[in-house]
């Protein structure tokens, strides 16, 4: 059985990665699973300097999903490179670094510093709904999306994935813009923007009022967008949004994804990625799929 896939020249033993922000930098999960089994680890977002993030509560549960407003708390790229990369490099898996910024300069800055790091890919997060400046605006305006992709790409020797926001009227427009800007791949979807109200306190549950909506509830939106983007650009796609099982992952691949990432499901079960990988293999076995790449975009 052939399970490996290639995205922008980088080979993954299997299509399954971890979604940024849901897997820390991998350490936390090493107690629960063998990280060597993962196609890749997309680490939590890092910025050029430390970000404190938002006040608590940062998490709320919704029907079949959750909201988060972490606000990209991170210790800054230098600490990240010192502490997390050496840890991750012990494992036979790809390291994808998700980068955040409030201005183009900040994005460029973190990219430049990552040139020293032993990593496999960079994922440009222009779609985080929990940060006031930058982040989300870059992801909802085609012109800005293209511009920031181009600027970051200039400084990145690693293949560049751009992560798209679902909070747009037409995701294919943004996808085309980042393709034009020189992206090597796209990943989607980031979280939808959601809100939950504590009806007894008459206050939003999250201190940040609104947050990013993720989990199995959002899968139909994600599958639709992956398929729309697959039909509109040539770049390889990493599909995510609500993936909990191997069947879910196959659905994204049929829609057009070359790789997939597991996010919120890691909170539902720290071994969720293992289940997804085993589930894909079981599906291939049962339906006689020899090569996982057969599935990519194989929707009728």
């Amino acid at each position, binding site marked *: 059985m052939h399970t490996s896939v290639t995205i922008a020249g980088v080979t993954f033993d299997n299509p399954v990665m971890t979604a940024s922000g849901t897997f*820390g930098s991998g350490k*936390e999960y090493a107690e629960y699973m063998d990280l060597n089994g993962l196609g890749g680890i997309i680490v939590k977002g890092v910025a050029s300097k430390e970000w404190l993030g938002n006040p608590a509560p940062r*998490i709320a549960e919704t029907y*079949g999903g959750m909201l988060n407003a972490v606000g990209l708390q991170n210790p800054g790229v230098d600490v990240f490179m010192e502490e997390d990369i050496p840890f991750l490099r012990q494992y036979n898996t790809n390291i994808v670094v998700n980068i955040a910024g409030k201005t183009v300069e900040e994005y460029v800055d973190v990219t430049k510093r990552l040139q020293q790091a032993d990593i496999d890919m960079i994922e440009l997060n222009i779609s985080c709904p929990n940060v006031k400046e930058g982040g989300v605006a870059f992801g909802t305006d085609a012109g800005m999306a293209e511009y920031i992709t181009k600027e970051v790409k200039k400084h990145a020797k690693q293949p560049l994935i751009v992560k798209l926001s679902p909070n747009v009227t037409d995701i294919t427009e943004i996808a085309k813009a980042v393709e034009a800007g020189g992206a090597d791949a796209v990943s989607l979807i980031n979280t939808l923007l959601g809100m939950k109200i504590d009806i007894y306190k008459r206050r939003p549950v999250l201190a940040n009022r609104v947050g990013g909506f993720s989990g*199995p509830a959002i899968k139909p939106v994600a599958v639709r967008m992956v398929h729309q983007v697959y039909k509109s650009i040539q770049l390889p796609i990493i599909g995510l949004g609500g993936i909990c099982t191997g069947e879910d992952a196959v659905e994204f691949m049929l829609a057009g994804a070359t790789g997939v990432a597991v996010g919120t499901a890691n*909170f539902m079960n720290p071994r969720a990625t293992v289940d997804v990988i085993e589930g894909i293999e079981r599906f291939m076995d049962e339906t006689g799929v020899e090569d996982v790449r057969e599935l990519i975009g194989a929707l009728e």
Partner: protein
Amino acid sequence: MCQDNIKSKKTVSIIANEEIAAGVYQMVFREQEIAERTKPGQFVNVYCQADSRILPRPISICQVEPRAGLVTIVYMVVGQGTKEFSNLQAGQTIDVLGPLGNGFSPVACEESILVGGGVGTPPLLELVKQLPGTKHVFLGFRTGSYLVDAFKQYAQVYIATDDGSVGQQGTVIDLMNAVGAKGQQVYACGPKPMLAALKTWTNERDIPAQLSLEERMGCGIGACVGCVCKVKTDTESGFTYKKVCKDGPVFDAKEVIL
């Protein structure tokens, strides 16, 4: 990577699940590893059966019986998840993961003070069992009380209730002042206002205190950075956010900002 060390969610058998006070339930389940490994103040992730509720509920471990492989948790029904747990019967199963977090660090000293508020009380039980020396336990409740007899086996117990239904009327801090609580180390778990008052109380008396915090959680294992509290730093901002689930839930009163 040795497979033997790999932790995972466990489906465990419920031995008992009884209401011990209005809306407060005590569940005993069988799980050998948790019973053996738990340190006082650690918690378990309890997963809901309703699959619309996707996130684990963190519940402190109240006590363990390592030889019998039994684990006791005590929880209050406050929402749909705890409501669901309360409907489970002995003989049914439930999914748990743990033990999680860093518990209390028992300090050997002559006299210790343990302070619990409401459903912050349970995790102090395993602690009082394990602590050497004399232990003074102060428990505060809105109304009524529970677990008091269990505590009495190991310590002198003082009770305060908001409505005066049991023990002295008032806060647990009022009670501590009234009886002139003393000791060389304080351990506490309860609502934020109680912990904040205790922080001041211990600070004024220069007694070290370990405070166990609560915050809404996503993962319970340190991955989502959802469950944070403020901890002092000498950086510009004066603080950084630490994870209650992984860096805590127990923090040094001197460091944590409440």
